[in-house]
């Protein structure tokens, strides 16, 4: 069966997207990262390798960390997606404790990997609010950072544990 329309919940907002070509539609070959960035304008999700290896485009799908460059949007019908833009409190603008901890520890250099790092860490804390340092390192092992922010990232995540709920 061919889909003609898909429903996507992104950061609590429901989007009904037509399948097809042209502005605002979802082409069958569109990846979720493309849809988020180019169709919905959510450019916080970063593309780097576009090949499933760097974790820059990590978002949460039904609460789990996934690579948005490696998913076809058309196959995400009915899914609940959270992107980096969806972490802060929409009303008050208050940051997620994880985000605040990244600022406090300067857990970034150029900042390009940061949204993906935070989303991977968020998925971990959703599942395991009090991880060990080893668990944090494993959970972030699919996130490329060339500046080597890793040490400060691990510290920031550890510092944020338990504060998120």
């Amino acid at each position: 069966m061919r889909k003609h329309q898909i429903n996507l919940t992104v950061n609590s907002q429901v989007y009904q997207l037509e399948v097809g070509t042209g502005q605002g539609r979802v082409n069958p070959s569109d990846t979720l990262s493309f849809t988020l960035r180019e169709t919905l304008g959510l450019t916080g999700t970063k593309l780097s390798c576009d090949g499933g290896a760097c974790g820059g485009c990590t978002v949460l799908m039904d609460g789990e960390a996934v690579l948005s460059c490696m998913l076809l949007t058309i196959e995400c019908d009915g899914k609940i997606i959270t992107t980096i833009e969806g972490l802060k409190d929409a009303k008050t603008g208050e940051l997620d404790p994880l985000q605040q901890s990244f600022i406090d520890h300067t857990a970034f250099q150029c900042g390009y990997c940061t949204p993906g790092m935070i989303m991977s860490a968020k998925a971990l804390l959703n599942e395991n609010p009090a991880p060990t340092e080893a668990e944090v390192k494993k959970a972030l092992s699919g996130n490329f950072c060339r500046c080597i922010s890793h040490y400060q990232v691990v510290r920031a995540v550890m510092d944020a544990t338990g504060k998120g709920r």
Partner: protein
Amino acid sequence: MRTFDHIDVYSIAEACTTLREYQGRARLNAGGSDLLTVLKGDFLADYPEAVINLKTISGMDYIREDGEYLRIGTLTRLTDLVSSPLLKEKYPVLSEAAYTVATPQIRNVATLGGNLCQDTRCWYYRYPRSIGGPVQCLRKGSGPCLAIKGDNRYHAIMGGKKCFAVCPSDMAVALAALDGKVIIVGPEGERRVEVTDFYHPTGNELAKDEVVREIEIPIKRTPTQQSFRKFTLRKPIDFAIVSSATVITVAQGICTDARIVLGAVAPAPVRAKAAEELLIGKPITEETDTAAAEKALVGAKPLSKNEYKIQIAKTLVKQAILGVTD
């Protein structure tokens, strides 16, 4: 990525019919972790007209014991293989293998069926269109295997005939050590294939209109020592340079049964039968272990840059049998 038709299917039968309709011009998609890299790299001559989504088939992700067999559905995610209490307890070789695959994000979507059916990682075969265009090779149907005279550090040390690409699947290695069978469904019905026979020198056993439905593993009545080892330059992300899976039964200090399988050394997982035979009936000692490891690699024929894989393979087998931990 170039565009394609996209079709959701709701049963394996529908997947087969759809494949048949497209006469080889459609590709199946489960997790997408491999297929999307193939399509983005655009390195194959036959870009699909359609992608068939299997994820809309319900009830295909399961891990259950059913009398004689452990059965795992083709759409079972690697994440679920890692965390399954049943596998951890009775089939640790499977959960350990699943854990070594890729990264957390990939394991959250990648499926067992997809892991088994993924295309080779040979870097000649996969050379992408965007930086000078794909290259022809034996696996693609014309010309020689480029690894023979090229950089073959990750290529086959045994079993390579004309193509020296290795099977990239870690799960296949672990499943082979458990005597796993791949249940394949086609328009004419089902058939079962040993995991080691699932792979061909330049592809796999699936016909153009067939789908992997399930993996079937005979339940062993006696406890076994299981181990999966994977040698890589980095623990996460990397595909195996060499891997090994061992399932050994020991009774009163004597090895009564053994499965020793090597991965990433050949186009398919390789059962080291000579090594298994050597072990059976003997106590597991440093001596028998070393002898078995040597036996496992008899007949290996390295290429110009991959002789080191022999030494690594021997070490993995040795460590696995002795239960040496890192």
